[in-house]
C-alpha cells in the first residue's frame, strides 16, 4: 500500500489524538493539561483539512478550521484564566490536589 497524502494526514490526526489522550491521562499540571487540549484541537483541525482535501471542498474545510481555531482560542483563554485563579486559591497547579470534590 502506497501512502497517499490523505493517509499520512489521517495518521497524523489519530497519532495526535493518541498523544493528546495520553497527555490528558498523565499530565498533572493544569496548564500542561491546557496545552494538551490545544494538541487535541490541532488534531481536529487537521482532520477537517484532511476531509476537505479528500472531498475537494477545501474552502468549506478552511472556514470550519478557522471557526475551530477561534473557538479553541477562546476556550484556552478561559482555561488559562481559571488556572490562574486555581493557582491563587489552591497555591498549586497540580490537578491531583484538586480533589476536594469526590465520591
Amino acid at each position: 500500500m502506497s501512502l497517499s497524502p490523505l493517509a499520512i494526514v489521517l495518521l497524523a490526526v489519530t497519532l495526535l489524538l493518541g498523544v493528546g489522550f495520553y497527555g490528558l491521562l498523565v499530565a498533572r499540571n493544569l496548564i500542561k493539561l491546557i496545552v494538551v487540549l490545544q494538541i487535541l484541537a490541532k488534531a481536529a483541525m487537521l482532520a477537517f483539512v484532511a476531509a476537505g482535501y479528500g472531498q475537494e471542498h477545501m474552502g468549506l474545510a478552511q472556514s470550519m478550521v478557522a471557526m475551530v481555531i477561534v473557538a479553541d482560542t477562546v476556550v484556552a483563554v478561559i482555561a488559562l484564566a481559571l488556572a490562574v485563579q486555581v493557582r491563587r486559591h489552591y497555591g498549586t497547579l497540580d490537578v491531583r490536589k484538586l480533589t476536594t470534590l469526590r465520591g
Partner: protein
Amino acid sequence: MALWTSSLHPFLWLIVIPVLASPVVYLAGRLAGAALARWLALIALIVTCAPCVLAAQELAANGAATFTLGLVQLQFDGLSLLLAGLALGLGTSVTLFSNAYMRGETGEEKYYAALLAMIGVMVGLGCANDLFNLWVWFEAMAVSSYMLVAFYRDQPASLEAGVKYLVQSAAGSVLVLLGIAAVFGATGQLSLASIADSVRQAGATQATSAGLLAAGALMTVGFGVKAALVPLHTWLPDAHSQAPSGISAMLSGVVIEAGLIALLRAVSALLGEGDAVARFGQLLLLFAALNMMLGNLLALKQTQVKRMLAFSSLSHMGYMLLGFGVAAYTGQSAAAQGGMFHMLSHGLMKGLAFLAAGALLYTLYVAKGAHGPLMVNDLNGAARRYPLAALALGVAVLGLAGLPPLVGFMSKWQIFVGGFQAGDTLVALLVIFAALNSVLSLAYYAPLVNAMYRREPSHAVRLGAAMPPTMIVPLVVMSILVIALGVWPTLIAWLTEPAGQALLAGW
C-alpha cells in the same frame, strides 16, 4: 445581502432576542448598576416568550419551519420547540430566582449576560440542522457555562468544579469535531438532512460506512460528555453542586438535555435505516442501565443536598436514554414521546428541586455571606420556617422518585409503556430494573423530605433569613405545574408529541 432581508420567522427571535439582549444587559449593568441588569434580563426573557408562542402555533399549523442563510439551514421542529420551551421557561424562572440570590455578588451583570447568551444559543442548538453549525452552538453553550459554573471564583471548590468541567467538556468537544470531520470526509456533506439522504440512497461503500461508524462513536462520546453518560459523567456532580443554585437548575434542567438532543440529532443522521439504528438503540440502553445504577447508588451516599440532586440527574438521564434507546431499538413512538416527556418533566422537577434547595441555601447561608454546602441535616425543620420552599422541594424530589400525583410518575409511566410495548424480553427486564431503581431512589429522597418536616429546627434554620418573594414565585408556579401535569399528563402532549415525531423521523 438579500439573505438578510428574507422575512424572519418567529422562531429566529427566540435566538436573536436573548443573544442581543446579553451585551445590552452587560453594558446596562456596567453603566447603570446591577439592578438594571437584573430586571432587564428578566424583561428580555419574558418578551421572548411571545415569539415562542407564535412559533409554537406556526409549528402546529404548518409543520417545521426553516431559515436558510448561505448553505446553512436552521430548522424549527418539535424537538427545537421542546428545547426552546424548556430553556426559556426554566431560564425565566432562574432569572427571577437569581434576582435575590445573586444580588450584590461581584460580577452580577456578567452572570445575567452569560445566562441570557446561554439561553439564546441553546435555542439555536435545538434548531441547528447542520452538523458543524450544531457544534458551533454547542461550543457557545459550553463557553457561556464555564464562567457560570466557576462563578464563585474566590472559592476553591467552585474553581475545582470549573476546571474539571472545562477540561472534560473541551475533550468531548474535540471528539465531536473529529466525528464531524469524519462525516464530512466520508460523505462530503454537512447538512443533517443531506447526510441522512446520502447515507440512505448511496448504498454506502465500505469505506464510507466505516467512516460513519467512527464518526458515530466519536460523536456519541463527545456529546455524551455533556449529556453525562456514565462513565463520562464525572464533571457533573462537581459542577452542579458548586455552581450558583440558579445555574445548577439550568445545567441539570436544560444543558444536559441539550447535550442529549445534540447527540440524538447528530448521530441519528448517520444511521440510515434498520440495523445501525437498532445497534445505536442498544448502545443507548447500555448507557441507560449504567446511568440509572450509578446515579442512584451514589446519590444514596450523599449528605449534601445539591450533590445528591446532581447524582439523581444522572439516573434521570438514564430514564430518558431508556426511552430513546427503546425508540431506536424497536421504533416505538410511545417510548420516544415518553423520553421527551421525561426530558421536560425532569427539567421541571430538577429545576424546581435545585431552585428550592437554592432558596433554602440562600436563606440559611448565602444571605449572611457564608458559602457552605447545604447539608441534609441543615434542612431539619425547614418546613416550619419556610413552608413553601420546603413543600416545593418535597414535591420536586417525590416527583423525581416517580410518585403520583406528580409529573414524574406520568413521564416514567410513558417510558415504561413504550418499553413493554416493544415486546422484547431484554427491554422489559430493563424497564423493571428502571422501576426498581425508582424504588431505590426513594431511599434517599424520603429522608430528605422527613428532615424538612422535623419539629426541631436546626441551628441554621432557626437563624435563617427571610425568604424574598421573588424566590417564592417561581417555586410556587413550578410546583403547581408539577402537580397539574401529574394529574393530567396530556396537557403537555402538544409539546412532547411533535418532539417525539421529529426524533423518529430521523430513523
